[in-house]
């Protein structure tokens, strides 16, 4: 039982990271109907930037965190402007390929700038543990869970109470109507990309202590797809819930099932869910007009 709880907690921590990446997908998908296959790479870029700020420049962890998030917000808007804006309205297939191309470019640039060695950062949570009875919880894992809760609360408040947040909601519900109401839809798209890059960057920095930072970190983004699909691809709480589910499934199957199942567990769950409920667990069933 102790093993089980231990695995569930590490699963929840990993799942929160998946959830945060999935949150990035969902934000962009809801507003622009684009699925961003480069989300994992954006997260990786955030993690690598934190290495530069913390290890190379020797800045304080919290300050670095802030700087990284701001830098990623700007980069996110630039990516939207350069790659996504020109192909607004193209078939989804083309847009998906463009984001895959963007992912390839980011991964290659990261490899050229930071090299291909594994890197690590020092955080205030490194090596700390927290014990409840016999249960051992690493500070790292706890920091991820707490940060996810805080981020979700912040996002909720942003979408609920700020003018920009409400404008974004309007854009994602009906672009044309939002445009008629005087909402600058294109600027909203850039802002959404910034926001999603910020969330991805936070995920990357939080993840950095538990896995080393390396050039293949971006593949975690692909693992976040099952999370987003489980959550229905359109629901913010759904994305986090999906992420946590995938994290728990993965960590339990790594512990109880033979080797090899851990890597594919997420995809097996994904296919099963898609067969059973094609719109995801939290999705809406929409019938498309001609």
């Amino acid at each position, binding site marked *: 039982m102790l093993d089980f709880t231990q695995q569930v907690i590490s699963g929840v921590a990993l799942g929160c990271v998946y959830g945060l990446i999935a949150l990035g997908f969902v934000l962009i998908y809801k507003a622009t109907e684009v699925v961003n296959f480069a989300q994992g790479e954006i997260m990786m870029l955030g993690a690598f930037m934190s290495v530069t700020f913390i290890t190379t420049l020797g800045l304080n962890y919290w300050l670095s965190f802030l700087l990284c998030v701001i830098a990623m917000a700007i980069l996110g808007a630039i990516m939207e402007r350069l790659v996504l804006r020109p192909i607004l309205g193209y078939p989804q*297939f083309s847009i*998906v390929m463009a984001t895959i*191309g963007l992912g390839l*470019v980011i991964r*290659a640039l990261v*490899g050229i700038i930071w090299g291909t060695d594994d890197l690590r950062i020092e955080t205030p949570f490194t090596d700390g543990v927290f014990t409840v009875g016999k249960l051992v919880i690493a500070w790292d894992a706890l920091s991820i869970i707490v940060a996810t809760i805080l981020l979700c609360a912040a996002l909720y408040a942003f979408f609920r109470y700020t003018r920009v947040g409400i404008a974004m909601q309007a854009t994602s519900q009906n672009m*044309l109507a939002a445009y008629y109401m005087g909402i600058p839809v294109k600027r909203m798209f850039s802002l959404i990309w910034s926001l999603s890059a910020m969330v991805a960057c936070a995920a990357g920095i939080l993840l950095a202590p538990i896995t080393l930072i390396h050039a293949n970190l971006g593949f975690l983004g692909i693992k976040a797809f099952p999370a987003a699909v489980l959550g229905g691809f359109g629901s913010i709480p759904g994305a986090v819930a999906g992420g946590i589910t995938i994290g728990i499934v993965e960590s339990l199957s790594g512990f109880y099932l033979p080797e090899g199942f851990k890597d594919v567990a997420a995809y097996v769950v994904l*296919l099963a869910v898609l*067969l059973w409920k094609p719109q995801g667990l939290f999705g809406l069933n929409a019938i*498309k007009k001609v």
Partner: protein
Amino acid sequence: MAHHVRTDYGDSDPLFPSKAAMFWYAVLLAGLIAAPYMIESYYLSQLVFIMIYAIVGVALNILSGQAGQVSIGHAAFLAIGAYFTAVAQKHGVPLVLYLPLAGVFTGIAGYLVGLPALRLHGIYLAIATLAFAFIVEEIIARWESVTNGNEGLMLPPPSLFGLKLGTEGFYYLCLLVTVLVILAAINIIRSSTGRSFMAIRDSETAARSMGIDTARYKTTAFALSAGITGIAGALYAHKMSFISPEMFSLSVSIDFVMIIIIGGLVSLRGAVFGAIFMIMADPLLIILKDKVPLWSDALTHALYLPDSVTAAIQAGVLRVVNAPGLKSLIFGIIIIVFIIHEPMGLDGRWLRVKAYFKQFPLARQRAARPPRMFLKSERR
């Protein structure tokens, strides 16, 4: 510009657009048949790779270009075809039997993947095929009694009717299969099945209203596409003569999608153009890798820059040129540039160049420009 007058329903989609086209295709075929006697073995080997990629391109064209279904997991079908071949050959099945059977077997796998596709569309389908590819890759790595796991399988050279096929023999086998696959694909596209595919691509709801059994045709498209990829997989296994799971990873699937994006989704010719581009990009990049430092060196010397600046520039150039991820950087940029500036692919460019010369002094730029696209919501 001469207009073709149609006098028969059969004229509306002939196998070859004109007599002249038939002649040029015959010339191309004759050239390819003569190729082993005319070019070096390195280029012959590249030609074989081009043909294998072209077969995969044709398969993806049927699925994505014609039927409008997305797949970013086609490396899995290539893997299934390749492993089927390796195992069949080990058990002494002759080539004439296992080559088509690899197609049939992979086609069945494709049919099974097509089943979820009935209920999914767009992005969900793309993700489902991605998940399928990961699962296949993992199964191949773990099912050691059949696939020998990560150590991979060696394949003896193929033999046809007891004769060992050498380099040239294998080249002709690939050529034959490629020609047959392309002819089959053209015929599928101009049959009622092909027209149903297009109807589904353009609007699934409208196709269903017209009485097209969308479920049947979507699974058919998947099965056909997978089957053709499986045949390509069989040839690929023989070409490489060694297969292991990491040869069928996600990046291979992305390469395959690049074939049709770069070549153009509209026609089969695009698949061939895309295959040529993807295969020839590698040797081209290697040549550039050698040449670029020389060019930058010559340039800095020509500008009489101070030695320290020259050295710094040279070091920078060498660092970029020798960077491990350079190829994916260039490929990523190519994908983005093609999608933004050439959505019809190389094939679209080819058609425009052809139209320019046909209408020579009267050609207008505006007429060739693709129509503007507007954002259409996929939601209600």
